[in-house]
C-alpha cells in the first residue's frame, strides 16, 4: 500500500545542503506494523513527514494505495491526509479549548460529516481506546496517557488506511507506553496498517517489522516475532 522509490530529501536551510534522505526505497503492505528506528538525526522524522504527505521531497516517487501522490497540490494533500492517514504525535497535539469529543470530531468536520454521525463515530472511537466516559472533559483535565489515547481515537475516526506515529510514546512513562502499544496492536490486529518511529528497542519489540535508518539511508530492514501484549 505504501511504495516509495528513490526518495531523496535535501535540506538547504543552513550553509551546506544536508541530504536527510538519500534515495530511499521502501514498501509497506497492508496490515503491517512497522517500527522505524535509528539514531538521532538519521532521517526518521523526515521519512515519516514525507510518508504522511506533510512534507515534499526532492526526487523519487511515492505511491499510496496505488495512487501516485508524489506531486499533490496543498489541498489534494490535505484531502488524502484527511481520508487515508491517521496521525499520532509525540506531544499529542490536542486542541486545548475543545472537549475531547470535539477533538475527535475534528477530522470529520474537515470531511464534512454531518453532526449526528460525527458524534456517534467519535464516541465509538473513544470507547475503542477506553475513554468513552470522559468525552466532555478538556485535554488539560486528563493524563498524558489519556491524551495520547484521545489522539489515537482522533487518528482512527476517519478509518484511514494507515496510522503514522512519530515517537508516540516519547512523552510517556513505561506503563502508559505499554497501554498505547496494546492499542496499536489491537488496531493492527483488526487490519489497520501502523508505521511508527521509535528509538526505544523495547518498544520496537511489539511491532512486526523493523526498518533501521542511518545517515539518511536504510541500513537494515527485517521482520520480527511480535511480542504480544
Amino acid at each position, binding site marked *: 500500500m505504501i511504495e516509495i522509490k528513490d526518495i531523496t530529501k535535501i535540506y538547504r536551510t543552513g550553509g551546506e545542503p544536508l541530504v536527510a534522505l538519500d534515495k530511499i526505497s521502501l514498501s509497506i503492505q497492508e496490515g503491517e506494523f512497522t517500527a522505524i528506528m535509528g539514531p538521532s538525526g538519521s532521517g526518521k522524522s523526515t521519512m515519516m*513527514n514525507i510518508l*504522511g504527505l*506533510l*512534507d515534499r521531497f526532492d526526487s523519487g516517487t511515492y505511491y499510496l494505495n496505488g495512487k501516485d501522490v508524489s506531486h499533490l497540490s*496543498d*489541498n489534494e494533500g*490535505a*484531502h488524502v*491526509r*484527511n*481520508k487515508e492517514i491517521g*496521525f499520532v*504525535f509525540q506531544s499529542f*497535539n490536542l*486542541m486545548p*479549548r*475543545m472537549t475531547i469529543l470535539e477533538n475527535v470530531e*475534528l*477530522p470529520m*468536520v*474537515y*470531511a*464534512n460529516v454531518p453532526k449526528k454521525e460525527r458524534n456517534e463515530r467519535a464516541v465509538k472511537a473513544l470507547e475503542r481506546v477506553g475513554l468513552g466516559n470522559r468525552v466532555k472533559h478538556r485535554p488539560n483535565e486528563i493524563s498524558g496517557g489519556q491524551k495520547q489515547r484521545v489522539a489515537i481515537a*482522533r487518528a482512527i475516526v*476517519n478509518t484511514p488506511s494507515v496510522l503514522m506515529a512519530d515517537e508516540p510514546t516519547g512523552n510517556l512513562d513505561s506503563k502508559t507506553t505499554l497501554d498505547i502499544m496494546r492499542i496499536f496492536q489491537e488496531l493492527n490486529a483488526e487490519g489497520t496498517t501502523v508505521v511508527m518511529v521509535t528509538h526505544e528497542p523495547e518498544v520496537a519489540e511489539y511491532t512486526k517489522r523493523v526498518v533501521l535508518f542511518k545517515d539518511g539511508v536504510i541500513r537494515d530492514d527485517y521482520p520480527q516475532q511480535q511480542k504480544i501484549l
Partner: protein
Amino acid sequence: MNLRENFKMAIDSVLANKMRSFLTMLGIIIGIAAVIAILGIGNGATSEITGTFNDLGASTITLSVSNDATDSEAITDADVTALKESIPEIERVSANNTTSASVRSDFDTRDALLSYGMPDLQYINQTMDSTIVYGRYFNQSDYLDSKDVTVISEDTAAALFNGQTDVVGEQLKISDNAGNQSDLTVIGVVKGTFQDLQGSFDLSQMPVYAAVPLTTMEKMNPTIKGINSLTIQVDSKDAIESVSKQAVRILETRHDAVGEDWYSATNFLQALDQVDNVMSLFINFIAAVAAIALLVGGIGVMNIMLVSVTERTREIGTRKALGATTGTILAQFLMESVILCLIGGIIGLVLGIFLASVVSNALDIVPNITIGSVLLVLFFSSAVGIFFGIYPARKAARLDPIEALRYE
C-alpha cells in the same frame, strides 16, 4: 467545513480570551458608539427643526425690503393688492412690522411689542395663536380711516387691567420710542399664546403685545411709511419658488427698482436646505471621525489576529495534518476577525443607542436611529473584520504544515 462549525469555532476562540477580545474590540466599540449616538441625535435634531418649520408653515414666504432702500421702496397697501391680484397661488398676505413702545392703561404701564400692519394682520405672527377671544380684529374701514384702535392679547389685557381680560372698549395710551403718543380703543382681544418653540416662553417676562393698523401707526409717527416685510402664504409648497420670484419681480417693477436687489424673498424651504446643508456637513465630519476610529480599531484587530496566528501555529499545523485545507484555515481566521468586529459593532450599537437616548433626553428631542444606520453598522463592522482579517488569515492559511507542527 460548513459555516456553522466555523462560526462556533470563532465564537469559542473569541470567548477563550475574553479580556483580550474585549480590549481588541474597544476601538470598534468606541467608533461605532460615537457614530450611532451622533447620528441618532443629529437625525433627531433635524426632524425636530424640520417639524418646527413645518408647523410654522413650510408654505410661507417672507419678502423683505433691504435696509439700504429709501422710504419710497417700502411696501404699500397697493403693493399687497397687486401681489394678490397677479399671483393666484397666494392665499394670504400678512404685512406687519414690530416696534417697541410702552402701553399705559388707567391701572398700569408696560413695555410692549407693538405690531403694525395691514388688515390681514391676524395672520402675521405664525408663532402666535391669534384666535379672537373678545371683540373683533381690524377691518378695512379701521385701516382706511386710520382709526385709533388696537387689538391686544389676553395676557396683555390681564397685565394692564388688573387681571381682567374682557377689556373691549377700554382706552390705552401708547408711546413709541420717538415720543409720539396716541390714545387707542381696544376693539379685540386675541388668545396670544405663543406656540411652543423648543420649550415655552415665560410670558410673564415678555413685554405685552398690542397690534394697530399700519395707517394708524403712520399717523402717530410720520416717519413710518409703509412696511418693510411681508409674509406670504401660498397654497402649496411647490409654488414657493415661483411665487418668490414673481413677487420680487412685481415689487421691483412697481417701485422702479429692477436690478437694485432691494427686495428679497426667503422661505422655509431655503431654511430647511440650510439645515440640510449643516447636517450633511456634520454627517460627513462624523463619517470621517468614524472612518478613523474604525481604521484604528481595525488595525487593533489585525494586530491581535497576527498574535493569535503566531500563538496558534502548532494548532494550525495539527489542523492541516488532520485535513484542513488552505481555504478552511483562511475561513476560520477570517470568521474570527469578523466575529470580533461584529461583536464590537453590536456592543457599540447598543452603547450608541444608550448614549443617544440619554443625550436626547437632556436636549428634549427624540433620538432617531434608523434601521439603515443599524444595517450600516453591521455591514461596516463585517467589512472592517474582513479587510483587516484577510492578511492574518492568509498568513495562517499559507503556513507550511511541517514547519507549523515543528514550531515551538
